[in-house]
């Protein structure tokens, strides 16, 4: 399910399935997308930040079109205790690999992988980032 911003329209609340994971997409070429994400974060229930939120930064292949500092995104992710993935959607290989990663994370968040919870997975990712 794709949304341009949060909150989601309340009319469809009763039709909506359970949400297992929220991926916030930030386009490195658009300062506006970062602002949009920052505003939308306020509408997410605190429980989601226990491993069910992820930030996806797109457009990183184009270093010369950067409108956002990557430090700013990393700081945001740290504040919300959630992982950041960087990718370039215009490259098919990376697009496919990123989709697979997100799918894997979604499976964990939905509880389909025995032995790993969303929370344990995200603390695993965080400790590897500190290195």
């Amino acid at each position, binding site marked *: 399910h794709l949304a341009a911003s949060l909150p989601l329209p309340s009319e469809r609340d009763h039709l909506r399935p359970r949400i297992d994971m929220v991926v916030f997409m930030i386009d490195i*070429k*658009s*300062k*506006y*997308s970062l*602002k949009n994400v920052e505003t939308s974060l306020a509408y997410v229930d605190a429980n989601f930040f226990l491993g069910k939120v992820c930030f996806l930064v797109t457009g990183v292949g184009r*270093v*010369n*079109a*950067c*409108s*956002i*500092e990557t*430090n*700013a995104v990393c700081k945001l992710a740290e504040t919300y205790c959630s992982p950041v993935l960087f990718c370039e959607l215009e490259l098919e290989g990376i697009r496919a690999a990123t989709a697979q990663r997100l799918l894997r994370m979604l499976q964990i968040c939905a509880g389909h992988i025995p032995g790993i919870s969303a929370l344990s997975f995200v603390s695993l990712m965080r400790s590897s980032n500190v290195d």
Partner: protein
Amino acid sequence: EIADPQKTAFVLRKAWTLYSVTPLYCFRRARLSDYARLLSAFIAAEKQKGLAVEVGVELDIKVALSSLADLRGSELDQAALLVQLSSRSRASSKNSEDKLVWSGWFCSVFGDDLSENVPENFTCLPLFLTHGAESYTSLVGSWFQKTFDCCFRRLAISPLNLSWMVAMWAGYKLDRAASAVELVFSMPRLSQPLDISYAIHPEDAKALWDTVQKTPGEITQGEVDVFMDCLYAHFHRHFKIHLSAAKLVKVSTGIASAHCDGIVKILHSQYLPGVLMLLTELAISQIQ
């Protein structure tokens, strides 16, 4: 501070195309006249091969190489190197003046980050600026690459860096009436290209920057962000368009202007070192 404004006057009010250059191997300042001769021969040879630069007119290209001790940041920087290509038409009389057809110069202004990490025998002049036909730039570049084993790359300027430049330059004091501070944005994902030009009175821009900047002489990314956010908010209030979703492609102030394709024009000699220092930094980060 530039010692002799006469020597650096050639830099002002011209559109320079920017390149980053890796360190030059075995470059000897004492051999400048030799190099000029070799480059001249190279250009003549390439023209013989049929890689004609000008069609129809017979032109002899004369090469001049000179050092500009004034164009550098500190004593740790190498003096700038100026390359000038002049032509004298064979048809005209021997006494006719040479016409400058192309100029390019290598420089380093506070480029210690690069020069302190480089082995002996390498000369660091990471910023290369050219003015004139692309075909000449190509010829000169090839010769330097072959002779000094260096690598040239066009220096692109990201929107992030352009916003840094406009914030910094809008804040500089100018004695006489300055031109407007102008930002040009390119709107993404449209079938036909659309550019938006946002012009601000220079006094308003400076007043805004003065309220944002906390420590004079120091600029932080946060301050640049606040400055730009104010401009975006103002524009949105009036036109309901989010400029923050568009691509900043060009900035212009009374001090200098810069385009994302790596083209700058410097208008004021007083701030020349500051502008060159910023460009040197960009060139170095492109190399590393």
